[in-house]
């Protein structure tokens, strides 16, 4: 074994360990070892404490799998064969020839080479002795042979042997994902993998920093001036436009909102004289009268319209100008313009029309407002029913007593709901339904028709 070891060692070339690991060598041209990158070396052995490795040029040139699929990121620098590219093949052949100095090695059948490798690894102590002895000669003789390749390919396909001491192992090529995974290459033709169709990286923080920015395969958004977030798709133009459109709309909504606050914030209620936006939580709401432009908080105007010590004509009138309005429209903000106001009222009626009328009771009861009722008159199977105009009744004693009973029930209802109403203040829908279910919008309408 010892005798056969020497030719063995001679048979393999010494490659620069530094260059093998990092594709850079501090000695540059003056390095005494061959400079070849990982994929150009079939590694044989590494001796601890030395700064070279033993190896030989790759024996076979295989077809490049990636190239066959049409995507090889190394292009003409690929170690594998790119079909129908003869010049490349020749080049790599030449390279192999120049690199493989010992002629016997090229002639060696691959099986014997493998056997050699095995025996070599068995005789490691011997080998190391040999190597240290030959170290000096090698430095002189091989110095001229150092490869001139300056390629900056940073990765190789072959596995490093366990003995190789790579200083920062986490950066070993095995752990660093490449630009293209096998799956990505295989599915490359499918449209969802096109850059513009890829989703933005979901792991990006608000500041646009991807936790794994070095290795993340996702598309990372560009900075959007409007929302000040990194949400612009870098490749997909329509996606970009959609986001910008969204931002513009959001901006408009914000503007509208701040205008609404601006015009609302100084408004005082004509009844309690307080600034409505500064009232207690749940009372910061406007009660808009459809027929005049006087400003009240919802609580006050509703309370006024419930006052039974006055005639209907009085309480249904605006406390400021005495213009009669049939209902009060709740609103979070004051409305200035006619358009805003009619839109608000439309929305309000629209919201009510989706709720079942509590008098009609899905067909079981009778609604005194008839088809003038704002609420939904529909049977359980969803058919809307026109119950005709409200029946006009004269107010006489019998009806009066009936009214009293109804009123008592309503007040019980109101009292019971008093607190939940406060806490539910944000839920406009609930509030609307609660109020209009129970109090004066219905109530005064009711009385209107009775009068």
């Amino acid at each position, binding site marked *: 074994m010892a005798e056969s070891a020497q030719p063995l060692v001679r048979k393999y070339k010494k490659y620069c360990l530094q260059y093998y690991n990092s594709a850079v060598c501090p000695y540059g041209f003056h390095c005494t070892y061959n400079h070849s990158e990982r994929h150009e070396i079939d590694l044989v052995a590494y001796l601890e404490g030395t700064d070279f490795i033993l190896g030989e040029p790759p024996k076979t040139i295989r077809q490049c799998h990636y190239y066959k699929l049409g995507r090889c990121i190394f292009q003409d620098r690929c170690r594998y064969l790119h079909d129908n590219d003869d010049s490349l093949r020749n080049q790599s052949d030449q390279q192999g020839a120049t690199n493989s100095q010992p002629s016997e090695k090229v002639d060696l059948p691959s099986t014997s080479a493998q056997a050699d490798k095995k025996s070599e690894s068995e005789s490691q102590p011997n080998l190391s002795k040999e190597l240290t002895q030959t170290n000096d000669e090698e430095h002189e003789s091989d110095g001229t042979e150092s490869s001139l390749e300056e390629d900056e390919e940073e990765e190789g396909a072959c596995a490093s042997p366990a003995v190789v001491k790579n200083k920062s192992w986490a950066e070993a090529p095995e752990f660093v994902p490449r630009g293209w995974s096998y799956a990505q290459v295989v599915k490359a033709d499918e449209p969802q993998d096109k850059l513009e169709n890829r989703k933005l990286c979901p792991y990006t923080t608000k500041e646009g920093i991807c936790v794994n920015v070095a290795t993340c395969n996702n598309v990372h958004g560009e900075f959007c001036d409007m929302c000040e977030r990194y949400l612009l798709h870098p490749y997909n133009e329509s996606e970009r436009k959609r986001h910008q459109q969204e931002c513009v709309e959001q901006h408009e909504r914000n503007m509208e909102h701040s205008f609404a606050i601006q015009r609302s914030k100084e408004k005082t209620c004509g*009844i309690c004289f307080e600034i409505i936006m500064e009232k207690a939580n749940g009372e910061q709401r406007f009660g808009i009268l459809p027929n005049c432009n006087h400003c009240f908080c919802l609580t006050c105007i509703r309370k006024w319209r419930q006052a039974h010590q*006055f005639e209907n004509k*009085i309480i249904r009138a605006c406390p400021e100008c*005495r213009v009669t309005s049939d209902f009060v429209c709740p609103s979070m903000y004051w409305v200035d313009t006619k358009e805003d106001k009619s839109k608000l009222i439309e929305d309000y009626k629209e919201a009510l029309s989706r709720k079942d009328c509590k008098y009609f009771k899905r067909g079981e009861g009778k609604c005194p407002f008839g088809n003038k009722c704002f609420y939904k008159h529909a049977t359980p199977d969803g058919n809307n029913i026109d119950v005709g105009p409200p029946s006009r009744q004269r107010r006489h004693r019998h009806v009066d007593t009936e009214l009293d009973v109804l009123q008592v029930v309503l007040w019980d209802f109101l009292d019971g709901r008093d607190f939940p109403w406060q806490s539910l203040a944000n839920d406009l829908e609930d509030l609307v339904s609660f109020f209009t279910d129970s109090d004066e919008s219905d109530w005064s309408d009711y009385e209107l028709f009775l009068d």
Partner: protein
Amino acid sequence: MANIAAQRIKREFKEVIKSEEVAKCAIKLELVDDNYTELRGEIAGPPDTAYEGGNFLLEIKVPETYPFNPPKVRFMTRIWHPNISSVTGAICLDILKDQWAAAMTLRTVLLSLQALLSAAEPDDPQDAVVARQYKENLEMFKLTARHWTNVYAGGPNVNPECDEKIKRLIDMGIEEHQARVALSSYNWDLERATEQLFS
């Protein structure tokens, strides 16, 4: 007192203090108690009326349900007016009753009362005797109102004739105010007033 009432009166009070009517000495408002339930108002008799030059004190009581109910207002100063009781000072004014609106304030109430002094409503009287006189003998009504303003509200128009008649009744042992009421009710006819007083 309900919070809303006290809060509102506080605001109104400040509003009245700063108002131009106060600057012109047409109305005045002061607090009687600290919790804003009772106030004292004062209005000047409107110019070119029988009440010119007089200052009329008003008692204002704010109900707990204010401003959903009107304040209770009464003349403390005696006044000869068809819509104000010459006995109790009770006022007959629609906005203080069924025509009240929650947006009205103490200031508007005081100004309304001032307007009432210059434009009486004899068809909706509080004091029937005064109203009848107003309708039947307007000149006599004005004379009486002026006299009352002079005597009770500090008005400038002294009427020696009235004073003389009252003095004669006082001499007969009648209390002064009683004598004035009797004479005023009978158009300053001393004979009929005496007859009524001693009947």
